[in-house]
């Protein structure tokens, strides 16, 4: 077994274990930390594929920024321990077959259209110098549309979080 394969399996195992632990934990902060482990393991997989820029961004954006906000909100609300239920009947009736069907479909598509050959290291655009032109020349329109999508999400959050305008605002005390 090559070093690459061993590392791939190790990172994959960490990612799957983290994902399972995320569901099994009853405390939200443990679930959030499991998700960070999944993100970090995925960054390791990207690194194995030679995509060091994507790996670094995965760590900075997801593990370092998005998940910090998750943990922050959990700490701020001081969310308590959740009750573990055995699951509703609807979830078992539709959820399990749905999940099986979904994974079979994904596996079929992947096997059918990409073959089972190995992905050579460096197949993905790795260094930032090759990613930059791709983002800002070839795929400029999708890139900008995605940023507008995120902007819409932010505006939605502001609208949802802001207080209704009819409520009287108490005068601010001078200090």
């Amino acid at each position, binding site marked *: 077994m090559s070093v690459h394969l061993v590392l791939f399996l190790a990172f994959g195992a960490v990612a799957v274990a983290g994902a399972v632990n995320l569901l099994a934990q009853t405390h939200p*902060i443990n679930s959030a*930390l499991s998700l*960070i482990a999944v993100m970090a393991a995925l960054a390791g997989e990207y690194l194995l594929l030679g995509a*060091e*820029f994507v790996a*670094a*961004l995965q*760590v*900075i954006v997801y*593990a*370092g*920024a998005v998940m*910090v*906000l998750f*943990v*922050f909100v959990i*700490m*701020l609300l*001081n969310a308590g321990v959740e009750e573990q239920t055995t699951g509703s009947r609807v979830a078992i009736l539709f959820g399990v077959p749905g999940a099986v069907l979904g994974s079979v479909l994904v596996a079929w598509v992947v096997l059918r259209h990409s073959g089972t050959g190995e992905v050579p290291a460096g197949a993905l655009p790795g*260094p*930032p*110098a090759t990613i930059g032109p791709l983002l800002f020349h070839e795929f400029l329109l999708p890139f900008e549309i995605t940023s507008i999508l995120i902007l819409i999400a932010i505006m939605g959050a502001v609208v949802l979080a802001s207080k209704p305008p009819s409520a009287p605002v108490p005068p601010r005390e001078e200090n």
Partner: protein
Amino acid sequence: MPIWLYILASVIKSAVVLVVLLTAVAYTVWLERKVVGHIQNRWGPTRVGPFGLLQPLADGLKLLVKEDLTPPHVYKPLYIAAPLIAIIFALTSIAVIPFGNPVTIYGYSIPLQVTTDVNTGLLLILGVTSIGVYGVALAGWSSNNKYSLLGGLRASAQMVSYEISLGLSLVGVLIMAGSFSLHDIVDSQAGHFASVTWPALDPVLRFIPRWNIFTGQIIGFFCYLTAAYAETNRIPFDLPEAETELVAGYHTEYSAMKFAMFFMAEYANMITVGCLATLLFFGGWHGPVFGPTILKAVLPVFWFAAKVFVFLFIYIWVRGTLPRFRYDQLMAFGWKFLLPLALVNVIATAIAVVW
């Protein structure tokens, strides 16, 4: 290079860098106590050794043998993990920092940094330091103490806010160097100015090196230093551990070595900030190199260390001079002043480079 030699070189380099870093951490604490003491018209530590030079050893010994208390109502797994996260990621970020040009020993070129020169070095440092926030946040939460929780919340909000300005303040340097590799960034600052239009000024300009700070990144440097002070939770941004309102903030419930880990992480982060400022804005290891071969080999590393020392001294100087911000002032400054300033710097640098 054969693989065993590569591994051997890596182990030796890691050990040397770790020992030097930890010693530097210990003596930065000594320097801080001494300098802040003199600023406040006191002597600072004087009792242990000449000039109190053995004080860090005494402190370390005391922290090692002190009773390691675990308060009864903490959430234990995270309470223990938090200081480990803080110190591990603080020490890891030094791994990609180069200290000089590669040296050639017996025909093998060995880079003067723990890893080889990775082409996303700067991003790696940013990634590792952004993970370090969890140490502080989780310590505050798992202590089950309202002062700790408030300190942890303040720290995570502050670090996330200033991380954006920190990242943007570096973009100007990246545009000018055209690379994420720290080695390339330093190489882009080699040499000195030479004037073609005003030959009369040439002898003066020859003394000014082409460091990024002199080639237009002075606003970027200001943004970087301010954001970095906030990232490392130092005065005037040390709200997470403001002793007048929060006892000791996120590490209120920690004692002995667990407390020492937070302390060491803070100083290790200060050193990393100083190293990055040196590499990105002050030409890294570039400086006057002269004399016999051995001196030529040692001088670049000396210049690097000297510049880092200056930044550590400024850290301490600022601590002895400035008062602490109020929390709303801190947030308003970060979002309404520093972030727009960093953005303006990015746009101005981009226009100037393309021109």
